[in-house]
């Protein structure tokens, strides 16, 4: 049950990353970072109580959205989903992420919500997170002790739990430069257009002609965290992407996932359509070159 009045907390407004991490070191699990607040404020309206809210609003330097053909993409902690959508470089090089941003919530939400916030929320329905998992991202964490990087594959530990220590600030997520021939796509299913995912899939395929050399296949809303589907990646690796192969994939997805019944759909339904969704997202990734035979 929500409340109309949020519980008391101290709003802290640090003005540098150093100040943020100093505050985090002091308050640890008695604090929460406020980026766009589209998840945090919802939680605060429910029973969530926290003593200190550390806002990133006045912290400079976290708004970087930088693409380099060698080093790839860096998304700073304050980059919003709307900014992703505006980036021609993201659109050209990371279609999966751009497509996730495109269907993400509503214009108002996109203007506020950050990509990092989406990752830190560790929801199995995180759309940008799902795309970045398929694209192979790394989270940059900073504390008073220094910086470290955690691969997204090892970042989400369980529902709403990440590998972040409570004194760490996520300052960016990095996505490697796409090798030539990389195709990616994102697709989700919702109850109405403006909704959280009830099922999501994202792929990045390293194609040579119509042969897939390597694949990353990820799904959302099929377990407590976003997951990769190694068995499907294996089917794709080194294979010619044909209609038969895709049919094979459709039949193989259900064994890889562990969905539940919830407000948005049922386990049964998710198991039935997950394969179709994966097939479609692969087709969508390859679409512009008509590589499916």
């Amino acid at each position, binding site marked *: *049950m*929500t409340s*109309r*009045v949020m519980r008391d907390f101290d709003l802290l407004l640090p003005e540098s990353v150093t100040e943020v991490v100093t505050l985090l070191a002091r308050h640890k699990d008695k604090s929460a970072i406020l980026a766009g607040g589209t998840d945090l404020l919802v939680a605060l309206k429910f029973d969530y109580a926290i003593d200190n809210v550390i806002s990133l609003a006045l912290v400079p330097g976290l708004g970087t959205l930088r693409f380099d053909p060698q080093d790839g993409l860096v998304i700073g902690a304050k980059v919003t989903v709307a900014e992703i959508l505006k980036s021609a470089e993201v659109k050209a090089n990371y279609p999966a992420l751009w497509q996730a941003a495109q269907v993400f919530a509503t214009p108002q939400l996109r203007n506020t919500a950050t990509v990092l916030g989406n990752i830190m929320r560790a929801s199995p329905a995180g759309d940008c997170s799902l795309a970045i998992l398929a694209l192979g991202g790394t989270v940059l964490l900073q504390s008073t002790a220094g910086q470290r990087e955690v691969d997204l594959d090892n970042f989400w530990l369980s529902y709403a739990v990440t590998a972040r220590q409570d004194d760490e600030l996520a300052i960016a997520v990095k996505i490697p430069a796409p090798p030539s021939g990389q195709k990616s796509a994102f697709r989700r*299913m919702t109850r*109405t*257009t403006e909704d959280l995912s009830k099922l999501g899939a994202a792929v990045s395929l390293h194609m040579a002609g119509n042969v897939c050399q390597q694949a990353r296949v990820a799904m959302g809303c099929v377990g407590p965290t976003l997951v990769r589907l190694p068995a499907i990646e294996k089917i794709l690796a080194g294979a010619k992407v044909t209609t038969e192969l895709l049919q094979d994939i459709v039949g193989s997805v259900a064994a890889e996932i562990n969905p539940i019944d919830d407000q948005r*759909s049922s386990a*049964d339904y998710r198991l*039935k359509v997950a394969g179709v969704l994966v097939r479609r997202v692969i087709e969508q990734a390859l679409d512009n070159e008509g590589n499916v035979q």
Partner: protein
Amino acid sequence: MTEYAVIGKKVERVDARIKVMGGALYAADIQMAGMLYGKIVRCYDYAHARVTGLDLSEAAKCPGVVTVLGPEDVTTKAYNASVLDMMVSTDMRTVLGDIDDQNIFTDHVKHYGDAIAAIIAISEEAAERAAEKVKATYEELPVYLTAEASKQPDAIQFRPEKPGNLAFQLPEMAFPNNSYAWGDVDKSFADADIIVEDTFYVPKQKQCQMEPGNYIALYDDQQRLNCWTSTQMPKLVQKKLANLFELPMTRVKINQTVIGGGFGARLGMVLEPETCALAMAVPGRPVKILSTREEDWVTSPSRHPGKYWMRMGFKKDGTPVACDAKFENYKGAYYVDASGTAFTTGAWLGGMYKFDSLRYHGESYYTNQSICGAFRGYGNPQTNFVMEQLVDRGCVELGVDPIEWRKKWHKTIGDDGWCMGVPYNSCALDECLDRAAAAIGWAEKREKYKHQSGNIRRGIGVAVMNHTSGAMPMLLEHTVCDVILHQDATATLNLACSDMGQGSHTTLRQVAAETLGFNYEDIYIATGNSDAAGFDIGAHASRTLYVGGGAVKQACEDARRQLFDRAALELEEEVGNLYMEDKIIHVKGTSNKSISVQTLTDQGINNFMNPETGELIGQPGQIKGYASFFPPHNAPPFGATIAEVEVDMETGEVRVLQLVNAHDVGKAIHPGVVEGQLDGGAQQGLGMVLTEETYYDDKGICLNNSFTDYKMLGPSDMPKMTNILVEDADPTGPFGAKSVGEAGIVPPVGATANAIFNAIGIQILEAPITPEKVLKAIII
């Protein structure tokens, strides 16, 4: 066709500017000196339990708390939050079995969110924090979520006077065999060549009005109980509160605030009793109660869900011989509208087709869900979902076109309408069907979609409906209006009709301007003050333009007649020789004999003496028109929708591509307002058939009382939509108008279901038709 000056014009809506500019004052916006805040303590742990202990002592000690209130600290008088019982005679109330079974706070929790106590504090925050400190202990009771469960012989009885937890069935005295019926159904079925039959489920849809339940009450120094509320029924709520708190009506004042959407959710009382009870506990201090969305969801009424069985019989030539139906609705925790929907659901059924015989049973069973009450359509969308799907199944078996069959067998002028004995006096449904079919290309698409394969299949379906303009003769219909003419020849209407956003204050003003012969800008509508306004039933049953408009027209005719009488005296002419143009009354056939309305209205007020002659100039007395209006009929509107859908055979997802709504509206007083009603209706109709349902776990805990978990269609989900207004003036409506407020929600329900049937060849019996259900049905 008659040429009107204001009627039929898209004038600026009276509420448009203020709402768009943020100037509209909703109850939540109102601040008062010394305001206190109330928080109702609700049981969210159980849906059915007895309160075995209630300890308010810790809460009372919290900072900022003024007082804490348990069940015995407020009136323990029982009430019925619905106002239906005030629209029938005392005798009829007894026949119907209406009861008062609600209390301000309860020691027997009957649904998730039932109220057990309250806090009054100096701030909202203090009240909320104190509410968390209330300690209640409960004895858990078995939970009944369906009629099937609550009618079991060993089930706990909700009310001693309602055995079997049957809150309502059509009473034997008024409805022999407890059924709404004509002919001999059993005999007719014996004559049928084709019989179709099924049991459907219709969902617990929520109105989702934008403004949640927010109220202020003040028991003032003059010992008057004031309530600021966005109720859609101010005069009946005034009377209900007077009854509950045992005060004369002169000591109860309703200040109607801007209504942030109603759709039935504010039909009757919602949290007015609680807010007023709190205010009575702290005389002289205003108390404000603000609901969260989740709270509003479970405390205001929803649509009646339930099992709906129907059987239809046809002759080979298509003749509909018999229809038998039973709607067992899951009424929720309290009686409220138990009688209304259980009856009307069958009434709409009876009003549609020329069956030789028909029999309908409507039963309302208590359940441990939140209450059901009025929701746009009032049983009609439920009937549309079931009746129209069965008709289409019949059409498939008969091998006839669904539009042709409907054109042949729908009821029309001279046939009994939804109320037996009250025949239709206008009907343009054929034209609706023809124009909708032409607009969408029905015949070609129907043919084209016959043979499809592949993953994406299209379908096209139709549904029709009848509705009503006001609830006479079943319920009281009455509006009082007075219109006062000012000295500058402008006019103020004083009445209690509600504008919930449906545009009624705009259209009523148009009716007044046209009738008086004034400009639209010359009229002001004064509403919202129950001290000043005469009686009005309130906004329900799509009545406001038809009945309220009838009252406005009659009051304005009265004022106009007075103007003409005075003009006749001044001009020394017969009234019959006069006419008005641009607010000047002229004598027919002469060009120089005239008097302006302004001269007449001014002279009536400023009745000065001519200093030379010593005589009074003009006729004295401010002109006031008055009407206490009871409508002669209920002018049922008709409507048809054709829907075109696309079904994804691999995922079960349904996309509505297009809707064409053609409605027999009598006369569109304001075409923009009419279209707005049809658009909004369609959005809710599509929601009911595709996505919307409030649901509970098996313990009765509501799982989706929020916009995160309950999905309405948003703007980007809406299909391409065409509205066709068929204007065939009704002989009884003001300027020929019939209602449109509820009509729009109804046929999109059946049409969409039928389009899905057309696409996949299978009928989905349970609404909403989610992808999960479609996929289950199509994967063998």
